[in-house]
């Protein structure tokens, strides 16, 4: 049984929908404000003694990760909705590869430098 509403939905080729993404100006504005706060905070933290000096690097990394999260949610609209499951899974795999490449390189090269110190240039 098909009523008028169903016919309207199914009278198109599959997958072509006049559906909007659901994002609004407010989403982008909130994202911009949060990203600006994180950016300004990281510049201030790096140039002042607001944080305990040895902790500045950790503070910068935390702020960068927070800002990346803000960009993913408010600009790239990566949410927890059913349409996003595949995107999130792909992101998780991408992050795993990025983590392996960066920490693996740093680990191996640090080990190499410790065990094979460079001789001073003649």
């Amino acid at each position, binding site marked *: *049984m*098909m009523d008028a*509403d*169903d016919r309207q*939905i*199914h009278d198109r080729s*599959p*997958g*072509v*929908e*006049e*559906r*909007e*993404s659901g*994002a*609004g*100006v407010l*989403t*982008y*504005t909130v*994202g*911009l404000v949060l*990203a*600006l706060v994180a*950016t300004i905070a*990281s*510049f201030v933290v*790096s*140039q002042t003694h607001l944080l305990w000096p040895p902790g*500045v*690097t950790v503070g*910068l*990394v935390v*702020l*960068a990760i927070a*800002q*990346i999260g803000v*960009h*993913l949610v408010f*600009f*790239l609209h990566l949410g927890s909705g*059913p*349409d996003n499951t*595949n*995107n999130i899974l*792909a*992101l998780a*795999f*991408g992050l795993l*590869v*990025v983590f392996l*490449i*960066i920490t*693996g*390189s*740093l680990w191996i*090269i640090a080990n190499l430098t410790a065990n094979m110190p460079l001789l001073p240039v003649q």
Partner: protein
Amino acid sequence: MAAVISSGFSTGVERADGAGPAPVRVVVAYGFWLFILSDIVMFSGLFAAYAVLSDNAAGGPTGRELFDLQKVFIETFCLLLSSYTCGLGALAAEWRKLKHFLIYAALTFSLGAAFLYIEFSEFAGMVSQGAGPTRSAFLSAFFTLVGAHGAHVTIGLLWLIYLVAQIVIKGLRPAVLRRLLCFSLFWHALDIIWIGVFTLVYLMGKQ
């Protein structure tokens, strides 16, 4: 409540309610998202190379002497604002407001071009004071990482010109709107990579 239609074929990306294949824009965005992630994996290699080599200045100038954080802050601000105007432009296109879209596209282009101009003048200044990519391992890694990001921004600007021309000639059709969706994903992703660049290269290099 829509009846469940068994369409007899599968796109591999089913809708959560089981009512047929996923919308084309969801599938297109997923494919482009996979490309962006592979681009981010490529950048992670450049980031790793920079992190490993950044201390090897070979007696030449170090980041502390070369970097000007005021310029970097303006660059960051330009790129962030252009991400914002790009998002608003995508909304205007979705709402079929051509004039608003063109204004936001022009703003996005000018902010991106301002970013590139500042970056290029920084590079030119460094090369002219003998701190070019051939000076040390640190500078080779610096120019490769920051230059790769700049090359992506350049490609993004060319792509934006091409898209605006398509929209002016063909109008705001669904197929063109999906290309615009891919562009805005690309542009926002470049901003995410820049967060890594200004944190790792500039702010930590200036410590």
